[in-house]
């Protein structure tokens, strides 16, 4: 299947099986390895990307269904909430191993874009799909609040 994908503001032409999850198109075809594989069944959120600003688990999204503007961790810093989240992540030393943090930042940036002042409940709702094995959750929560204030 030949398809145009709008990835990080560029049109990329790929020829991939229709059922191939977008995750593997990004990682193995386009070489955008910032988006991570963790579970393959939308349980961990490491593969979270934005499509038209909404957070999507790319490990279960077939390439054939991937339309709209795709933004990955490599370019989310160009969006106001992505940049704010990244800065807050650094300010609060959130990261340990870092493997899940691409997905965490993407989920947080999407949350902040639709809700500039999230409550704890809002954060729980938006972020509970993202597992962090290092359990940096307390700092993720604080960093989202800090980014919201900025």
């Amino acid at each position, binding site marked *: 299947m030949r398809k145009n994908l709008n990835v990080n503001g560029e049109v*990329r032409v*790929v*020829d*991939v*099986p229709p059922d*191939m*999850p977008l995750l*593997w198109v990004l*990682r*193995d*075809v*386009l*070489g*955008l*390895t*910032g*988006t*991570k*594989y*963790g*579970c*393959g*069944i939308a*349980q*961990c959120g*490491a593969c979270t990307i934005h499509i038209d600003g909404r957070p999507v688990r790319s490990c279960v999204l077939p390439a054939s269904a991937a339309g709209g503007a795709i933004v*990955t*961790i*490599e370019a989310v*810093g160009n969006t106001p909430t992505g940049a704010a*989240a*990244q800065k807050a992540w*650094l300010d609060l*030393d*959130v*990261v*340990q*191993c*870092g*493997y899940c*943090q*691409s997905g965490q*930042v993407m989920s947080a940036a999407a949350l902040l874009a639709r809700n500039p002042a999230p409550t704890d409940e809002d*954060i*729980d*709702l938006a*972020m*509970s799909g*993202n*597992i*962090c*094995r*290092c*359990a*940096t*959750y*307390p*700092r*993720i*929560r604080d960093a989202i609040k800090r980014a919201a204030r900025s």
Partner: protein
Amino acid sequence: MTLQAPQLPTREIELVTDRRRLILGGGLVLGLAVASVKARAQTADPSRVNPAGPQPLSTDDVSAAAGEGFRGFAPDAFIRITRDNQVILIIPNVEMGQGIYMGESSLIAEELEVGLDQVLIAPAPPNEALYKQPLLQFQGTGGSTSIRGAWEPLRKAGAAARTLLITAAANRWGVPVAECVAERAMVRHTPSGRQTTYGEVVDDASRLPKPEQVALKDPSQFKIIGKMIRRVDTPAKVNGTAVYGIDVIRPGMKFATVQSCPWRGGTLRAVDDRAALAVPGVLQVIRLPDAVAVVGEHFWAAKQGLDLLKVQWNAGPNANMSTEGLWASMEQASNAARGAVAHQSGDFDRAFQGAEKRVEAVYRQPFLCHAPMEPQAAVVHVTGGGAEIWCGTQVPTSAQGAAAKILGVPPERVTIHNYLIGGAFGRKLETDYVEQAVQIARFCPYPVKMVWTREQDTQHDNYRPLYLDKISAGLGADGLPVAWRHRVTAASVTIRFVGPAGMRPNGVDPDAVEEAEDPVYGKFQNMLLDYVQWQPPEGLRVSWWRGVGPTHAIYVVESFVDELAHAAGQDPVEYRRKLLRNQPRGLAVLNRAAQAAGWGTPLPAGAGRGVIVQKSFGSFLAAVVEVQVADEGDVRLRRITVAVDSGITVNPSVLKQQVEGGILFGLTAALFNEITFERGRVQQSNFHDYRMLRINETPPVEVIHIQTNNPPGGIGEAGTTAAAPALCNAIFAATGVRLRELPVRRELLRKNARKRTLAPPIAAALGARLLTPAEEVRDERADANAANDRGELPLDGIGEP
């Protein structure tokens, strides 16, 4: 093996690969990276060193640039300074989330007098002679040993290099060394104000003899150590540029995924691969003795192919292995008349018989999977007489050796490029995934990236062993233990990793008894601790898991001390204070944690607090976990309070990170995790049935850092070792139910099912006479104390340390 190469669009791959090669390749890397670091250094805020931070270079390319062909100042294994004043620090331990790039670069930079915003960081290549970990005695990262081992050597390395650079500058100017000072990679002659960069004197410094003795800074002079400085590896981890082993891309690389035999010790019998090979993008099906792999143009093709294989296995000797059967075998082993004695003092039997009260308990802990977020992966290119390997590993020289053995070549023919690790927790002390990738790559004329599925990662880990602990104590008139008997039964991790040389001559596995033998309280009176080595079925390998031996032992000791406090009718904090009367560091952390947690203040119905105090890895830590147990048995974490004394702390921010994450990591396991076998197969497969704590389940965690001038302790695992006993003690306080088996079983906590857990009659098996159970008394006391914990009764004696 069939080669079938459909023409997939690899153009994009090549484009990216070329770019990668540019960024990561050879000499260019230094130029690019130096430029970016310099740009940042100009805007550095001196109060927050490293505001953006240099990116650690997660390949060996810097080591290549800084290695044999290096032109410049190379006084030792860790420091390289170029003529244009670029400082490269080669970090002996691997970064897997614990912040060691930060910690070890801080030690060197502190004495070398360079800013962390001025350095590049490179992982050490495999080299036992240069990078052997002083405490482990091999090149590896684990056991919370890194800072403890590096504390002196790395500071001395920095100080020696600084001394040479100052001397070189002083000689050039013809002035006394004592009139010169170093700061931020510059030497300044104080009286004249003349100054020079380190880079300008590297050639002179290289010709000077090494100083025999160097003076280390007084801690009052530290500029980096002990300061809240941001981690150096963070920026790349929030913008997608950090490269983990699973992210490596090589020119012409293909992708493999694999299914190992579902039965440990089983083998591959036959594969029908016709459907798999018909999948567009599938290139090869590779048969290994105990696994089958599919190679494709991308992971998805390989995975599709794998799912379409019709595989027949020889299940082998463990076809009927079950968790139930393994426990029965452990139980039998634990009834041995004699175990290997780890510690014996006084006369347990006599003291036990003469005790006012006797308490006994059996604790069971399950197999645990490491489950790092990054599934096992490695890129291997087997070439004419050797191989290049790109991966993350905690043991680079072991990985190199294992690969060389498979290929039948000397180790130096195998190059290991070590990368950032997406969580290890002990998993990457194993080299199985590297070995398997090498076996696959032997059949491939191109570099191949093997990526395990989460299912393969969960089911083919080497697990933390089962532990069976039988323990009994006699209490004196004051309620404190006068006799202590503990038998540990477990497979030996030490035998697997180190071999007999790691065991004590009498057969004790030191890991299995660590912190049971010498708990925070010191040794108990009339104490007998022994170990029975259980032999697991062949093919069932046990592994180090975060917290190693102490995670096992502290759960048992701190659960049991809690039981003793309740049996004695005493408050668990007060009881521990009495036991700690000669242990000031333990007492101090206990008092701070209890005070900060509001120990003894009222809680809502259904809530309870549990306390533990421990020493592990040279650090002292007390924790109070507060839970709410619903009538249906669900446990909700309300609040966690930890006080920690880790001695001199290199980076307080990293310390707090590690304690926060460490205790939540341990709570995840205690609440949710066990690996079980049924008919030889692992029953868990992914995060839906081996589940992780999530943010909505995470309570506030307060970490109180007590700074002392004791030698630095390890901190990556101390939070984890505290978790399970603090949780179970809290559940007891909330419900009166003592959980002696992990993970937490909600069905035991349902309000109408709650029972006092009676201690089983184990004393005979342990060599003491059968007991008169004091359970009835104990449970009444337990009720009173549970009420106490809920704040229904006044408590006193809680105050400032």
